[in-house]
């Protein structure tokens, strides 16, 4: 009977959480009665599994929703819930105001060099991202909705939807930060706007894609808040060093050729990190 049970457990597909639960239930009942009785019940469990697989195939949204559509559904869900509560945006705005005012208090009356002001700008962006972007996955774990998402859509769609939402969030946030920074820091004058524009465009996307993926990892861990910057910083450092350098060049009024080395690093970083995130996300999401 033991062997039969193992054999049946092997027959049932691994993804079928309900089916294995049904089988476990069946074996509990089967344990109390005779072997024949057990056989009947386990055969019924296998039939149930087959029925479930069939119904899932027929009515599953995986069949209805192609990956891109699922990703856009997740994106609009996150956007709607953010627009309703304005949880992330409000607190992030206050975070930026607080950080900026501390910097302004400490640099009042000083002439800040271009490399220092570029560094300060990206410090604000980095820590704003660290306090805001983890929410996308942490909130799913906290509300216990990640299981539902796992059932209904493919992992890649989840990542792409969350990445799209986080990118939009970080773009909006960066526009606000940069406007506030340009207004309040007299020594931060961008002499090559085009270089600065490309830097922000690529830098924000790279930041969003690396930190979205790290957010998925830390949402499963215990000390989420402190772990997030610890894990993200080494991964983001190549990006931060090249965006700070490119920002300094744009403030100094450098030519496009001078900044091209940084842009090459930024583009390759974005491509590499996004690809790795898409490939590895299955292991993080379905662990």
């Amino acid at each position, binding site marked *: 009977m033991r062997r039969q049970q193992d054999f049946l457990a092997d027959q049932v597909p691994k993804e079928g959480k309900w089916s294995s639960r049904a089988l476990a239930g069946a074996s509990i009942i089967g344990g109390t009665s005779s072997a024949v009785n057990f056989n009947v019940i386990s055969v019924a469990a296998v039939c149930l599994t087959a029925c479930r697989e069939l119904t899932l195939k027929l009515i599953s949204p995986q069949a209805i929703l192609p990956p891109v559509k699922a990703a856009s559904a997740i994106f609009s869900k996150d956007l709607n819930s953010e627009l309703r509560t304005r949880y992330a945006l409000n607190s992030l705005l206050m975070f930026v105001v607080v950080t900026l005012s501390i910097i302004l208090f400490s640099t009042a009356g000083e002439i800040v060099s271009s490399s220092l002001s570029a560094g300060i700008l990206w410090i604000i962006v980095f820590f704003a991202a660290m306090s805001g972007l983890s929410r996308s996955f942490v909130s799913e774990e906290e509300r216990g909705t990640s299981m539902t998402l796992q059932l209904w859509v493919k992992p890649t769609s989840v990542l792409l939807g969350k990445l799209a939402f986080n990118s939009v969030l970080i773009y909006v946030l960066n526009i606000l930060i940069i406007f506030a920074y340009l207004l309040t820091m007299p020594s931060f004058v961008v002499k090559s706007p085009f270089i600065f524009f490309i830097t922000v465009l690529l830098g924000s996307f790279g930041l969003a894609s690396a930190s979205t993926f790290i957010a998925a*990892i830390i949402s499963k*861990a215990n000390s989420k808040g402190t772990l997030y910057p610890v894990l993200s910083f080494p991964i983001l450092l190549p990006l931060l*060093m090249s965006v700070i350098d490119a920002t300094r060049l744009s403030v100094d009024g450098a030519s496009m050729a001078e900044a091209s080395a940084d842009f090459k*690093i930024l583009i390759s970083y974005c491509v590499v990190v996004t690809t*790795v995130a898409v490939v*590895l996300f299955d292991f993080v999401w379905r662990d």
Partner: protein
Amino acid sequence: MKSWMKLLLGAWISAVLILGVTVPIGDIPGLGDRARIIFFHVPMSWVAVLAFLMSMWYGIMYLRKRDLKYDIRSESAAELGFVFCILATVTGSIWARFNWGSFWNWDPRETSIFVLLLIYGAYFSLRSALEIEERRASLSAVYSIIAFVTVPFFIFIMPRITFSLHPGGAGSAAPILNTNGKMYMGTDMKYVFFASLIGFTGLYLWLLQLRTRIGLVSYHKHAEAA
């Protein structure tokens, strides 16, 4: 590891240590006798990167096979790599004090080893924040993979495109790690250098075997108790 191999390893590393100090290395411009650090510092950083690569490799094996033994190997490799990474940082820093005048000045090479230390630190803090064994194994494997694809930006690209004082940075003549991709070493120096590389790699593999055995024993003990 057989006991004759342990004895051989001990003799080998002792020989490397003695030769590293005594062998004539000729005149290297700008470095002089301080170039002898190459026999001890370079193998340390080599092992630190190798250990990180092995840790990632066992992580990938875990993700493929879902066997916790690979996770123990991966963790052991990372722990030893961390030790060698600290040794590389300390030896490099002492050398910098006598060649450049200060222990630490954020040269691109120093930044890259610092980032490697940070990644190891982040890896261990991630492991300690995850309680379920399978989840810890798969998430730390994933983290070591994503860290390893960003590390090349530092160790192999950054020091070559930015100006660095480290031997091998853009524009400075150096025995190894130069932009031409050639080695400029006398024959004696080359032999001792490779002997040292082999010796310390052997030492690392032996330590890794011991550490893995301890990990496996405590894992089985734990599994029996549960």
